[in-house]
């Protein structure tokens, strides 16, 4: 079958290609469908790749850090902070531990409460930022030691934040993959409909060809090649437009938030270039199936 596709595309029977009239509403319908669906597929692909990267980035960022929160009476905060730092310094698997200064904490809270927050007047717990080494640490053992040395200290290893983020990013990726599958299936359906319409509109052509001794494969080839090339061309235009659209998206730093990283990076740019090839393969098989099914209805 693949050999038939390559032969039809690259060693065409130019006579077979001529027997089907070029004009017809199915011509632009096929090209337009392929272009529009590929355009959408490029964005779905970009979303899928971005969701994957986002999931990895969130997981990586949260997986190697932890926070110790110290909520103690004001006169105990410094004592317990030193105790916690001492415990952390002697815990295997901890690469670094740093108590956030008032300025650091004010900066963290500024987006929500503004820059003039009177930190000293509020019962805000002291935060210690913990960085793991690649091996990691025993979180349960650390919790027990912290409970013994600093009763007001609570270890937050980010598990409860990391899991829903990873799940959300995974679902977003799945959604994008399903979207791509639906887009390609819709493209196959539309091209099949267009091929059926073309076959019906060219009933006289088919009757004449059968009358003069044309085999089914000859007749089918005339339609298949036409539709495959139309889908390839339309899809190439759609892919180019989609890639241009992705390239023109705001830069990650400027957009921020969720849009951060939406697009293609590095070798990812090759993937949308494969969509026209995929569209051509889909058109080839969809048209071939439609053509042979239609021809079998004729004697």
């Amino acid at each position, binding site marked *: 079958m693949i050999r038939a596709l390559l032969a039809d595309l690259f060693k065409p029977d130019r006579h077979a290609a001529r027997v089907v009239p070029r004009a017809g509403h199915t011509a632009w319908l096929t090209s337009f469908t392929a272009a529009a669906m590929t355009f959408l597929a490029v964005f779905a692909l970009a979303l899928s790749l971005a969701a994957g990267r986002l999931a990895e980035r969130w997981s990586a960022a949260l997986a190697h850090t932890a926070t110790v929160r110290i909520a103690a009476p004001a006169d105990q905060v410094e004592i317990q902070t030193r105790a916690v730092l001492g415990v952390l310094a002697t815990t295997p698997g901890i690469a670094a531990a740093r108590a956030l200064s008032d300025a650091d904490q004010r900066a963290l809270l500024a987006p929500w409460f503004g820059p003039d927050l009177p930190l000293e007047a509020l019962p805000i717990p002291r935060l210690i930022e913990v960085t793991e080494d690649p091996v990691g640490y025993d979180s349960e053992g650390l919790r027990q030691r912290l409970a013994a040395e600093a009763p007001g200290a609570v270890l937050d290893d980010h598990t409860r934040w990391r899991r829903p983020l990873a799940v959300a990013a995974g679902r977003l990726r799945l959604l994008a993959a399903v979207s791509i599958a639906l887009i390609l299936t819709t493209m196959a359906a539309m091209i099949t409909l267009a091929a059926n319409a073309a076959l019906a509109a060219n009933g006289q*052509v088919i009757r004449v060809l059968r009358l003069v001794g044309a085999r089914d494969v000859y007749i089918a080839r005339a339609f298949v090649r036409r539709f495959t090339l139309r889908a390839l061309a339309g899809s190439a235009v759609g892919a180019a437009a989609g890639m241009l659209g992705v390239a023109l998206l705001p830069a990650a730093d400027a957009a921020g938030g969720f849009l951060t990283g939406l697009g293609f990076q590095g070798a990812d740019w090759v993937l949308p270039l494969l969509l026209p090839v995929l569209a051509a393969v889909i058109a080839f098989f969809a048209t071939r199936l439609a053509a042979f099914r239609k021809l079998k209805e004729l004697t």
Partner: protein
Amino acid sequence: MIAFDNVAHSYGGGELLSEVTLRLAPGSFHFLTGPSGAGKSTFLKLCYAELLPTAGRVTLFDREVRSLARDDVARMRRRIGVVHQDCQFLDHLPLAANVTLPLLVSGRAAGAQDLADLLGWVGLGQLAAALPPSLSGGERQRAALARAVIMGPDVILADEPTGNLDWEMSLRLLTLLVELNKMGKTIVVATHDLNLIRSAKAQVAARVLRIKNRRIQLAGADL
């Protein structure tokens, strides 16, 4: 060459043709007559496997048509030229391309001189580049005949080929068919034009088959 053995055909209602048994010998010339709707076109379609018999056996070139795969039918039709009253063409292709279509679909090249000779023979030498919709009825019939013979078929079937033609053009087409028969081709012409049959019998030893009461019988001397 083409043999019918107790053949019947029905389109779903009653039988249009029944108990048809005959053989078309190589090089023979047959006319098939009968009133409109008698089954002349059905008989011809059975001859080139566009229809299959609902009973009996049709044999084309020693092969029973029901045993033929679709590709076999296609190859068989390259040995049978067909001319219809409402001859159909690929309207977007010029006359020359339409006439050479049987060669193209069988993967053979059309020689320019052979094509010119053929178009000259049917009197269409000046119209090679014309598109079919621009041709007159007589020109279309002759073009269809040229297309039917370009593969050098063994059999030529013509279904009311003069139905849309004036008498002069009908005689011209008949002359071409007689010439083909003299070249050894088997000819079957379905027509209800008795004058055409009489003219042909003056030129060639044609047999006349008549469809009557769903059966095909040899017509008598009353023609």
